[in-house]
């Protein structure tokens, strides 16, 4: 791993390349579209031809950040520029001496970097979580109680004749602008009419409006009625008796609508309930479990196949959950402090550990949200930031005690990302990095820590 100066000289020595890149993977939203065509000219990405306004703005913003990072220090001590090697040594030393280190795992990095991050947590006997946001906690606990039924998105495209969008806007103006374009509108092998051959239903609970793909039915319920609604639907699907009048009174929706919805779900040849970040953020454990059980029961009591589909946010949280799964046996909230991985939902969640002052050193990998860092302000553990914008003034919301910049994970680093349906995809490096990648940085850090006497080579 060379210094920033060395890498810059090497980059400058090479002639600028003008090239058109096809089948580029975009991590800007949970769709992880991998069919983009971009032009890279003299080190600049031209995404104007990309058929997604969200991706266009993401590439503009990310490239602007890359430009600013290239002017920023490669490493810092308390906000002041410092040589990378010196900071790396200090980071290694501080982590090795830590009483209760905590790693905020890289949810925006490649799986290669994520593997290195979990390896580092093992070396350090540290805690590791997928970030400070509670998002995902209830979903995983529900899955571990009830199981889950899913499918890769090509299955939806090929087979889905019924699509229930629950608090998710799949239209071009929504947070997943191309999902419908790619997976609902085209004809599928078993749905030759494309979107016209699919029944699309909408249910809004935590969002303030029904939006997205034009649907046949739109149902709006209050958040406090979500659990009762799920329970009633499950009973209807199982063929049980439900007081539809009472349900209508509770939800404000007519009784016949619920009966019809249950019938439609049961009659699907291949049905799918699509949820997104809103559901993930708001649904309780009981509601998540109710949804998973409803989907499973539709396979038992329905006419055909039924699956769930979760569309995540941008980045690579599914990748980190998968890596934690195969290296530590759990998707999040893992604690290595007993020299082996323990899955401790709630107790080992990063937000809890920081709020309770249980982490004395935090290694945050990747960009952190302002709210995350505001929370960290209160207890102020020793804060180490590794990531693309780690040394950008003001980007962190607090000044990290130690910071090291890395290549942009989507534009410069390359590697593997995972869609929330479990499909792995490659990331194409678009620009020559002037920083080490996060995978390289974490591996170098691990080696240095081992040399200082931690327990794993």
């Amino acid at each position, binding site marked *: 791993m060379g210094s920033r100066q060395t890498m810059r000289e090497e980059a400058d020595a090479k002639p600028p390349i003008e090239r058109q890149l*096809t*089948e580029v*993977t975009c991590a800007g939203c949970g769709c992880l579209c*991998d*069919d983009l065509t971009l032009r890279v000219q003299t080190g600049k990405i031209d995404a104007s031809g990309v058929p997604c306004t969200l991706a266009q703005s993401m590439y503009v913003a990310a490239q602007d950040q890359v430009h600013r990072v290239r002017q920023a220090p490669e490493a810092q001590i308390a906000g002041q520029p410092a040589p990378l090697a010196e900071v790396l040594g200090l980071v290694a030393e501080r982590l090795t001496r830590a009483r209760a280190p905590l790693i905020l795992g890289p949810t925006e990095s490649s*799986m*290669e970097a994520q*593997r290195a991050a979990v*390896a580092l947590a*093992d070396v350090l006997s540290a805690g590791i979580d997928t970030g400070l946001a509670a998002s995902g906690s209830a979903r*995983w606990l529900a*899955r*571990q*109680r009830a*199981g889950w*039924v*899913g*499918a*890769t*998105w*090509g*299955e939806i*495209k*090929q*087979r889905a004749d019924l699509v229930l969008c629950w608090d998710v806007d799949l239209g071009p103006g929504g947070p997943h602008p191309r999902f419908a374009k*790619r997976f609902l509108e085209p004809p*599928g*092998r*078993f749905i030759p009419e494309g979107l016209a051959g699919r029944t699309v239903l909408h249910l809004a609970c935590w969002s303030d409006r029904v939006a997205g793909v034009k649907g046949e039915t739109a149902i709006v319920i209050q958040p406090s009625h979500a659990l009762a609604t799920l329970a009633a639907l499950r009973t209807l699907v199982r063929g049980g008796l439900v007081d539809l009048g009472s349900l209508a009174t509770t939800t404000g929706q007519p009784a016949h609508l619920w009966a019809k919805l249950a019938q439609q779900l049961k009659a699907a*040849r*291949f049905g799918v309930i699509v949820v997104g970040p809103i559901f993930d953020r708001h649904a309780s454990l009981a509601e998540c479990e109710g949804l998973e059980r409803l989907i*499973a029961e539709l*396979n*038992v009591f329905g*006419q*055909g*196949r039924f*699956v769930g589909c979760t569309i995540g946010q941008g980045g690579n949280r599914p990748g980190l959950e*998968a890596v934690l*799964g*195969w*290296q*530590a*046996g*759990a*998707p999040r909230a893992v604690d*290595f402090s*007993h*020299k*082996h*991985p323990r*899955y401790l939902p709630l107790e080992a969640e990063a937000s809890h550990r920081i709020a309770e002052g249980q982490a004395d050193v935090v290694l945050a990998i990747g960009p952190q949200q302002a709210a995350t860092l505001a929370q960290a302000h209160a207890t102020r553990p020793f804060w180490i930031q590794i990531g693309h914008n780690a040394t950008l003034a003001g980007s962190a919301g607090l000044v990290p005690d130690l910071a090291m910049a890395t290549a942009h994970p989507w534009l410069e680093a390359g590697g*593997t990302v995972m869609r929330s349906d*479990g*499909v*792995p*995809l*490659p990331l194409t490096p678009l620009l020559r990095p002037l920083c080490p990648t996060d995978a390289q940085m974490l591996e170098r850090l691990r080696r240095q820590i081992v040399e200082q006497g931690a*327990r*794993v080579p």
Partner: protein
Amino acid sequence: MSANLSYMMIRGGHVVDPTHGIDGVLDLWIDRETGRVVPAPADPDTKAERVIDARGYVVMPGGIDIHCHIAGSKVNAARLLRPEEARDHGPLSPGSQLRSGTRGSIPTTFSTGYQYAGLGYTFAMDAAIAPLGARHAHHELEDTPAIDKAMLILAGNNHFVMDCLGAGNHAAARDYIAWLLGVTRAYGIKAVNPGGVERWKQGGRLAWATVDEPVPGFGVTPRQILVGLARAADELKLPHPLHLHGLNLGLPGNAASTLELMQTLNGHRAHLAHVQFMSYGGDPVQPASIVPAVAELADFVNAHPALTVDVGQVMFGETTSMTADGAVGLFLHKVTGRKWHSQDVEQETGCGVVPIRYEDHNLVHALQWAIGLEWFLRVSDPWRVALSTDHPNGAAFTAYPQLMALLMSKNLRDEVFARLPAAARERSGLAAMGREYSLTEIAIVTRAGPARMLGLTDRGHLGPGAHGDVTIYAPDDDRTRMFALPRYVIKDGQVIVDDGEIRATPQGHTLEVAPEFDEQIVPAVRDWFERDASIAFSHFGAGPRTGEESR
């Protein structure tokens, strides 16, 4: 006279190397630079730099697991589904120099490698990887140290294969399979319930009435898929033939379709996986009607040398069922009422994961246990039957020592048999079978045989040129203890386990094949893929190699 720094000598052990007909005391030499077994040096004064005194010990090649599930999306989903498994079995906290992990029926990757090595196994074949997830699976295999490994890719419900075979275009199916093996960096092909997963995904039934029912929308039958894939594997000269999980897995009465499939193969090579689960008589809709139907099937295997089997032995206790046969996952969910994970994979396959506990007082489970053992005892040629539990379906691979002990002792089998339900004892012929495996036969079904079945010419034996993968056991009347705790395990000439302690964790090799094919097939594959798949064509497959040497 000085020590030759590159040599390891294993002195005076009781070497059991069935491939070369060796069952006696001799010295074994390994060149540690190449990691290969070499002939004893011509100069009798040659000294090895590392000498392992194996006098009084049993020396075998490293174990070869022909069929297990240790990597990829299905296995990882099971880990995420079942954190309680990790808690129940305690952690793997192996101290310095190693990665920690979890144990149980679905251990984490590092733990998987260490535990296989700890049992004296040096190779494991993951038998069911969805090609779409090959990139993920290779990541996991890179994180599975100490053993060599490889993967079989699922092809029995692949739309392109079924389209080609339905159209009578065998050559296209064959060329596609060759292309698929190359881009996924896989070792062989597996058919799981050929056509049946696709039919189930369309809302179809679990059970096939005959092997000639068409798969809706594809104009092809299970019989045609089976023959097409077996023929393709033969024509491509794959080192391992078609690996088959048949129809109606786990259902009473499935022996009829198993026999019909074997007859259909008509001389083509094939390996029947976890055949125990495919060997039941009875009525498909009456689980309690299950009766063993091994005799006729085993007789057929005995009479047809192109066929081999692994057993998929059930051992009593808690484990995790996982299969690409999505319909079976739903069936088990309904039967057991336990949590269920299912994932359909576009154009290729499905998946089902359900926790399961095999109870010796349960009629079905008791008969499954007995049926598995019957297979080991009824196949007359041990080279044609491999030891497996279909890890983790019948039991975790960590139960292998117990299984070896059962094979070597009728008394031990009788002890377990005696506590089975009376109805199971009445239906099973196990008690009348007195055969006991010898050490040589154990070495065949755990090493030499599976290596031969997989076409691994340089593994599973200790002749010159073989990988220096050696397991040294302390003889013990308690065979479970003997096979559970090797004194030494050596991988490519390096001691990796010494008296239960992991000493080294080489990365291990990932084996793959890349058969030649007619490149004209690629545009057609691309057209089909771009029409139906959810990812770009160039992103399909395993991606560039990042780990250690592959073959």
